[in-house]
């Protein structure tokens, strides 16, 4: 993985610290061309990985990349699935099964022509792989060397202790997509322990890592201990602690943990991208 990963929250009105900023961003990035322009700035600054949710609009970004193959030849996307609010809003309106019917490609009853609903209800593994395929469809012919499960889902599976779901995910991503599975979480120590107990070794785990302990559930001390002692491939996100930290101070802190492989950040302006990348490389190396 590259040291610097470019994120997508700014494109989709995802601000964890200001609803108002969210709305401003959704106006700024109304056109896909504006998103692509920022991605080009990131690429020109030497960032070749875009870590993004499987939002509908990413499909358009992928279309453009496929059309301009030469320009985007070295560029990777790390998909993060699913775009959770799409499902959460659907579950409120349609229920759990209604949502699955809506999002599994084709008609789920014809997919399982033989047994219909009863068959679906007992073939969770098949259902999981179908949902993964549905989310991955937009990335056809695009390099996706790491594929992430979003934190809402990871942390839900973790809390429900449905740990075999991680095993199914891990295996399917490796076998079907020849990619490395990754996990986003707000509960790093607990997740690491569960993955380790299921034989998932040296996993890629993306979590909040910041000096103030913001969204580091289980406590900052435990996170720091795991970052020092445990064998996994950490990606740091929310490094600015929801805006509480200045970039210099925030990234300097990450420098205490040389095993952090990558830092995920999003930005909208070229200068901001260049400056943040410089800081990351200064404190964490290239």
């Amino acid at each position, binding site marked *: 993985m590259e040291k610097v990963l470019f994120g997508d929250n700014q494109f989709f009105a995802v601000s964890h610290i200001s609803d108002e900023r969210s709305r401003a961003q959704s106006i700024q990035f109304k056109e896909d061309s504006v998103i692509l322009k920022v991605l080009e700035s990131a690429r020109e600054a030497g960032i070749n990985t875009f870590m993004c949710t499987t939002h509908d609009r990413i499909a358009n970004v992928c279309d453009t990349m496929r059309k301009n193959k030469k320009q985007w030849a070295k560029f990777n996307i790390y998909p993060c699935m699913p775009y959770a609010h799409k499902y959460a*809003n659907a579950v409120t309106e349609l229920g759990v099964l209604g949502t699955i019917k809506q999002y599994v490609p084709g008609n789920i009853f014809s997919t399982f022509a033989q047994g219909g609903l009863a068959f679906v209800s007992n073939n969770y593994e098949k259902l999981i792989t179908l949902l993964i395929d549905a989310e991955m469809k937009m990335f056809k012919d695009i390099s996706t060397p790491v594929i992430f499960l979003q934190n809402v889902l990871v942390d*839900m599976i973790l809390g*429900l202790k449905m740990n075999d779901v991680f095993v199914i995910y891990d295996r399917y991503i490796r076998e079907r997509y020849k990619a490395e599975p990754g996990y986003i979480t707000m509960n790093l120590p607990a997740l690491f322990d569960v993955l380790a107990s299921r034989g998932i070794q040296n996993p890629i785990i993306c979590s909040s890592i910041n000096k103030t302990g913001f969204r580091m559930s289980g406590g900052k001390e435990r996170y720091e201990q795991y970052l020092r002692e445990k064998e996994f491939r950490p990606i740091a996100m929310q490094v600015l602690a929801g805006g509480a930290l200045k970039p210099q101070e925030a990234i300097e802190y990450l420098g205490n943990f040389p095993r952090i492989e990558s830092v995920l950040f999003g930005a909208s302006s070229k200068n901001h991208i260049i400056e943040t990348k410089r800081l990351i490389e200064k404190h964490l190396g290239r």
Partner: protein
Amino acid sequence: MLKVGIIGLGKMGISHAAIAGAHPDVEMAGVCDTSSFMLNAFKKFTSTETFSDFKEMIKTQHPDAVFVATPTKFHFPIVKYALENNIHVFCEKPFCLKCEEGKALAELADKKKLVNQVGYHNRFIGTFREMKRLLQANVLGELVHFTGEAYGPVVVKEKGGTWRSKREEGGGCLYDYASHVLNLIQEVISRPVKVNGTLLKSIYSHDVEDAVFALMALQNGISGVLSINWSDETYRKMSTSLTVIGKKGKIICDATEIKIYLKEENKREHLEKGWTIRSIAEYAIPVNYYLRGEEYSAQIDNFIDCIKSGKQSTINTFEQAQYTDRVIEMILSEAKRA
């Protein structure tokens, strides 16, 4: 260890099951639902006992506490049965479809000295807690007006399928979205005592309203506006906010930040003249396990702590929730009258 059962495995039941399941003092005694799809998932992937009948779960597992997250119309019989069996109850919002039912449950829980809490999770969001504190510290002086709002993209097309599209089962924007804001107004500002004029608008739904607008008067003498719309796709997810205007300034608060405008500096609260903007990062309640927001874990931590320490919850009690039900009924009867 507390033995906990989950009744209803929709969005909130699953969320509660995950959060309670991750709590170090909780042992999952069982989950209950009518859908075999969810029960089979628990059977396949967990060692939790599954039930299709909540009475059977209670009889065989003897849980110390249950989480009730069924469609609203089932809250009353299930909660009543649990209380009668001396079980602490956390119930999803809104509480009950009939005020007298909620009132009876609140009285029963108090009589039995059982911990009772309802899932109005916004009360555990740090920014709204800070807003309540600042209002109690009188930073705005005499209050003049409030606005309570919530917008989001739940029903953005003409279709409808589940109980949420049926009024008699507790569907519609009033029960689902507006109840959150009514509860916040009630607990952060003051209890609504009168509703003067209501608009319930269907935008895409056939049998329920997608938007609610109302003018309301509160116990503390101020009046204001309720404005709710769950068919607004300019919002990525539910966005809830309260604004209060006083003679000395104004506070605008949502789940992500609190914005305070003061005509003069307030030294005691370290608030400058003009705008002060503070983010949730300053006020978030630290939790051991995080899913979807600190508030969802914090409310369950509070419920578990109360049971363990043998004290009553003071936040989101049945009594508070049944008052919110009463305000919903005021809005409905005002809409009918008009």
